[in-house]
């Protein structure tokens, strides 16, 4: 068996008296399509934040492709090959969609960053447009992102995270805050964009319809612990999950 692309070992994190992560161990294989579920405060976002370097775990180890990345700054983790999107899209509001992606591709680009080469060189703009195209966003390229609808902003946010060609992409609630009939189109576009990439996609999700349709594997959180980790079908059938997470019998 090959090395897991991401492995968390015995992660613990407490905020004062509140335990947000209690001995979490998760191993994620290359190219996985994984959903993290759980009610608010169960520890999903804390997990994502720890893995991407926003929070430092009290104890435990995070290995990315076998390398210890525990406590590294977010930008180093991104550089290592693991990036994330945000529940509330983190965009440069007055800048256009294209410029936002250019920022992402610009940062991701390796090699010398010349001061005498325009950021809007033909090659760079073409590459950025290609990324937008993968999300069907070319029409919005020239509009300031602050003026765009919520679903489009979500997708731009994800497109930016994908610009660095990560091996692990964490999506923090990609469909929250958008209307229910937008959810599937958004996820369809995300999944289509991921086709051909070897990236493992880990998404935090509340909508079980989304989870069943897009996740091959589901991890359920409750009170800072993992209570189930299996295929989507198996997890959603789990009694604990039904009691603490989905709150209903399917």
């Amino acid at each position, binding site marked *: 068996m090959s090395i897991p692309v991401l492995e968390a070992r015995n992660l613990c994190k407490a905020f004062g008296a509140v335990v947000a992560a209690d001995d979490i161990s998760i191993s994620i294989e290359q190219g996985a399509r994984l959903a993290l579920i759980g009610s608010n405060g169960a520890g999903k976002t804390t997990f994502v934040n720890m893995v991407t370097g*926003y929070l430092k775990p009290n104890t435990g180890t995070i290995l990315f492709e076998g390398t210890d990345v525990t406590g590294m700054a977010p930008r180093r983790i991104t550089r290592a090959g693991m990036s994330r999107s*945000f529940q*509330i899209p983190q965009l440069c509001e007055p800048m256009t969609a294209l410029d936002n992606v250019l920022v992402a591709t610009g940062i991701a680009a390796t090699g010398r960053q010349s001061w005498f080469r325009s950021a809007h060189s033909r090659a760079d703009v073409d590459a950025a447009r290609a990324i937008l195209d993968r999300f069907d966003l070319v029409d919005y390229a020239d509009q300031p992102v602050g003026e765009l609808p919520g679903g489009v902003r979500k997708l731009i946010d994800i497109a930016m995270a994908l610009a660095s060609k990560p091996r692990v992409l964490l999506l*923090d609630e990609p469909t929250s805050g958008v209307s229910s009939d937008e959810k599937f189109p958004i996820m369809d576009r995300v999944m289509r964009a991921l086709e051909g990439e070897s990236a493992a996609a880990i998404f935090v999700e509340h909508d079980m319809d989304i989870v069943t349709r897009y996740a091959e594997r589901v991890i359920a959180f409750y009170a800072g612990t993992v209570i189930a980790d299996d295929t989507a079908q198996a997890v959603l059938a789990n009694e604990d999950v039904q009691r603490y997470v989905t709150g209903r019998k399917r």
Partner: protein
Amino acid sequence: MNLALTILIDGVIYASWLFIVALGLTLVFGVLRILNFAHGGLYALGAYSAAVTVGWFTGHGLDGWFTILAMFIAALAVAVIVTPIIERGLLRFFYGRDEVLILLVTYAVFLMLEDITKLIFGVDPYYVFEPRTLLGNVEIGSLFYVGYDLALIGTAIVCGLAVWLGLRRTRIGKVTLAVIAEPEVAATMGVNVSRIHLLAFGLGVFLAALGGALTAPLISVQPGISVSVVIVSFAVVIIGGLGSIPGAAIGALIVGIARSFAVYKVPEAEIFIIYLVMVVVLIFRPEGLFKPIQARRI
């Protein structure tokens, strides 16, 4: 007499004066996110109106303790007249804008206040002698202190506690805290946010003017008194943590005692000791001493 005690007493008197001025500054920042450069101009306005009011009172036979009352009335008058003009007429159009830009707006107000004050009161000095004679002298060790100066310590404590408790114990205070924490939520819950803003700014103006009024007996009230005050009180609120009342108190004490120490021990450093303290504090506490660390929601 014990040198340490002298340094402490002198430092605390200076700190009390600083605190009264800085309290209004930090309060206005806490509620409105405005670092108000015009605070210095309002301080000067308070000093001038105290001089005029006290003069009017004594001219009408109301001397003695009435002069203290007159100083408070003067500060109140400045607050009542000036607040609506500056807050309603100008600042409210800038809420939510970049803090540094608003600082520049208040700097413009400060410049205008300088000349307006000069146009109203002229360049000749004004004096307020009487209040400082009311409390007599106190001998501590081999030194005499003026009772009025020592009473500034009490006044500062009363002002600080009144504002601090007022925010925590009264209804309007709790509403104000809600506006500070979650302005949008407070507005949707029916809080009249603009009224809170007006009140908070008014209280800030009152405290600035009161600082000036209480200082008037110590100085000759004339053009140029506003500038040094505002920079020093900026240092105090930055050291303490912007928007924090206990921070302003601690900041004032640190600055006051550091300055007093410098006067006795390293007089050459007095001119920049305050800024040096500010640099050192900021290096170790990037947002001042009393800034709760706020995790950003992502």
